[in-house]
């Protein structure tokens, strides 16, 4: 499973859909609860063995599958 597929698998549970595109803004879709951001961060950290730090907290790192994959790629290179 590539990075985007792993991210899509996790997000599909929250959005109860198999139709998420890589460019869908998951925060704009609504239907998420207050625990979503925390679980998303934990999932990214565990799945990709990186640490999300204070300065990484930017909505543009987490709002689409494309952006999450790009963020993971940048963090993994460091």
């Amino acid at each position, binding site marked *: 499973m590539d990075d985007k597929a792993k991210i*899509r*698998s*996790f997000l*599909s*549970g*929250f*959005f*109860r*859909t*198999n139709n998420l595109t890589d460019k869908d803004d998951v925060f704009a879709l609504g239907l998420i*609860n*207050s*625990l*979503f*951001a*925390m*679980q*998303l*961060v*934990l*999932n990214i*950290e*565990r799945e990709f063995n990186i640490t999300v730090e*204070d*300065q990484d*907290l*930017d*909505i543009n790192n987490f709002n689409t599958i494309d952006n999450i994959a790009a963020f993971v790629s940048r963090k993994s290179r460091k």
Partner: protein
Amino acid sequence: MNLQLTNQQKQERTRFREFVDQEIAPHACRFDREEKLPIELIVKIARQGYLGSFLGEEWGGRSLDTITYGLLSEEIGRACSSVRSLLTVHDMVAISVLRWGSHEQRAKWLPLLVQGKAIAAFAVTEPEAGCDLGCVKTTAVRAGGGYVLNGVKSWITFGQVADLFLVLAGLDEKLSAFLVERNRPGVSTVPISGLLGVRASMLAEVRLNDCEIPADSIIGQPGFGLASVVATALGLGRYSVAWGCVGIAQACLESCVKYTNDRKQFGKPLKEHQLIRHMISDMVVDIKAARLLCSRAGILKQLGDPCEVMETLIAKYFSSRAAMKSASDAVQIHGANGCGDRYPVQRYMRDAKIMEIIEGSNQMQQLLIADYAYQEEARNLSDGD
């Protein structure tokens, strides 16, 4: 998943129990009556390393693993939910600073929090914002190179004595978190008394009136106060409360076993009456189930598994209900004696009711747990399971 305690965890639990039985349990009814904790006890708790106990040695902490941390919460909760509340709110701020604070914030605050030289409180809820924290009205405005805060925070546990508040406020209409020292001009507190339970938690209303704080007071990035900082804190809070509830239920069981051994009615000890044994057996099973859920959440938390968020929530939901049921039955078993202040069970019942409300009411938990069921189903379908 190995749910057996290690020898070290068992030894720690023995040490916790000894401290609690000596320093807290004999005085807990007085704390409840007087609606305060003595400062000397807080100093002793800090000296034991029980504040910020999960923090690493670089901060002066004891690096407790999640299970040992849970055992500490259970043992203290067994004696006094107000003391357990002190550890909970203090540690909620500590974990927020550890997880999302800047290097400078960690270096400044974590050693002070471990040593108890600063007591921290979680100043998030407001008169109109309880479970629905999106409604927070407190504002932060950029001014003079820093921020100016205005608003009122309600039901702030240990707000009467805290030196440091983690405040949630709207900045540019996005919720952000700030560390605010008590001695800042514009900070004032009004004690809240006469509570149903956790009466020694020294609650206060915290008022922020043109309170100026420096730019480096913000914790986490602007706009991530609720989703990241407060969410992290509440995750630990729910975990601590869940274990504390196991402690309440355990205390109920211990009180009832002793009482039903000693008390005779109709010519035989209460424990010989079948309907009494029914309530005792329910307590035993609920306690074991709650402890298992807490342990499972703790292991997942230690592993950094994303499931820990929901599993902790489930543990808190179950444990708080178990505590309330056990405490209600404990009062029933003690009869008239259970309603008076010679026995602690009425305190356990009042404290247990609070546990069904704090760190997300049980009705909020029910909604989220149901969501979880549907999320799991959708994820399984997505993975082709």
